[in-house]
């Protein structure tokens, strides 16, 4: 069985996702010992605009993620967001898991400053959200159906927006994944999940690299006190500009 990582990295005017993915591919090889395929030359399939607090409104080429199943050359694929920082070997157990499809059910703020209750749900009625940031899938009927269902959600986005009362017009892979898992699991919410939550760093905190695979996060806590922590685990860096600066320093 072949195993590898897949990262979608379609640049926009604001972020060099390809550089981010290339840097991460190196991290993946060091920590997980697997190769990475980077999908870069996709024709954007329609425009999607999203507001990031550190970038403002940007065009976001995220609509092709549903093609991961068809594009992956691997039997077992680790599908990662370009801004997911691999700083350890913590994803290795996923490569041995006897599951067709795994994703994170919940994310949390690595600094503990923000309650992610809102981010872990979507729509007016707080539908539980699964995160598409890290996905492990095995070539299988089940995984193929999940990606087909994601495509169905993407292609009928306005219908699903209405159904789940999602105010934002922007299509998000996290929402499509959550709906697809629900559909494919008989409308039950008991899909197997990655057995730990997704560590996340929001853009308002300062991120700097102190050493290889060690990062310093400076933040202001709820009592308005300055604090910092050292991070030496994988995390989802929502602040693209800070991550880009770190990558530029490394190349």
């Amino acid at each position, binding site marked *: 069985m072949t195993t590898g990582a897949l990262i979608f990295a379609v640049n926009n005017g604001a972020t060099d996702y390809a550089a981010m993915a290339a840097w991460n591919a190196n991290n993946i090889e060091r920590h997980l010992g697997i190769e990475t395929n980077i999908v870069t030359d996709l024709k954007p399939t329609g425009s999607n605009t999203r507001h990031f607090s550190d970038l403002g409104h940007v065009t976001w080429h995220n609509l092709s993620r549903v093609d991961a199943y068809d594009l992956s050359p691997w039997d077992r694929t680790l599908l990662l967001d370009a801004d997911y920082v691999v700083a350890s070997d913590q994803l290795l157990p996923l490569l041995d898991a006897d599951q067709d499809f795994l994703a994170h059910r919940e994310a949390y703020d690595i600094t503990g400053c923000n309650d992610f209750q809102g981010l872990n*749900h979507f729509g007016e*009625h707080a539908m539980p959200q699964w995160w598409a940031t890290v996905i492990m899938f095995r070539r299988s009927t089940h995984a193929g159906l999940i990606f087909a269902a994601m495509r169905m959600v993407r292609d009928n986005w306005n219908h699903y927006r209405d159904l789940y009362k999602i105010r934002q017009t922007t299509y998000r892979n996290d929402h499509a994944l959550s709906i697809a898992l*629900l559909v494919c699991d008989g*409308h039950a*919410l008991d899909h197997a999940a990655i057995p730990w939550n997704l560590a996340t760093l929001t853009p308002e905190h300062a991120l700097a690299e102190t050493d290889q695979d060690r990062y310093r996060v400076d933040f202001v806590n709820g009592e308005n006190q300055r604090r910092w922590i050292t991070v030496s685990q994988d995390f989802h860096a929502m602040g693209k500009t800070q991550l880009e600066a770190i990558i530029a320093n490394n190349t």
Partner: protein
Amino acid sequence: MPWARHSWRPSLPITHERGYVIPAIDRADTNYVECAGRLADSIRSWHPDANITIITRDDLPHGDQGGFANDWQCWHISPYRETIKLEADMLVTSAIDHWWPLLEHRDVVISQGARDFYGARTHCRRYRRIFDANHFPDVYNAITYWRVSRTAQQFWQLVRAIFGHWDQYRTLLKFAEDQPSTDVVYAMAAVIMGPERVTLPEGSGPMITHMKPHINPTHSDDWTQELTWETDPMRINTVAQWGVLHYHVKQWQPS
């Protein structure tokens, strides 16, 4: 003891070993008989051979004592050696016959806790302030099991005594209601008897899906107008339901 005068045997002969009892005493604003019929249909859709007794006003051996205060009469009416009493404004959305082997080891089991329509145990305490203030167990009378036994006799006679002498019992409580709810009376009876005698450990027994607002992320009182719902199979906002759905909106007319 005030209940020592009473017989501990049910008034009616036992005709079946196990069955479901649904109290359905109509009120001016609510057709509980219709609700109970719908609940009975939903039980039969999963368990065609289930024994089901709907208790209407005419069946009450001690007459209509008004609203919730009739509840204790179920003990006298149930024709089953083992009974599961269900509140009328509920629907059974999946098989529930696994409850019997779970419950049969106890004399009385009052359900504890409630779920939202996503299946998650609710932590909402908005409707349970009196429970928290009085350190009551988080019981819901919506699902109550008993077998003919001395423990059940004590429980039901205590329930009767609390309803009948509420003006005295309420003095023991913080924030007591003017008219007791069945849940509060059951909780008080549970505390007097010892909660371990009439409940299972939390999370291990049957639990209702409660459709009250605040428990669920809805904005209005009437979830049936706000959320999409389908029947056969029962789904709310596309999420498949299981167990017992306490739909709360009594005017709801699912097909």
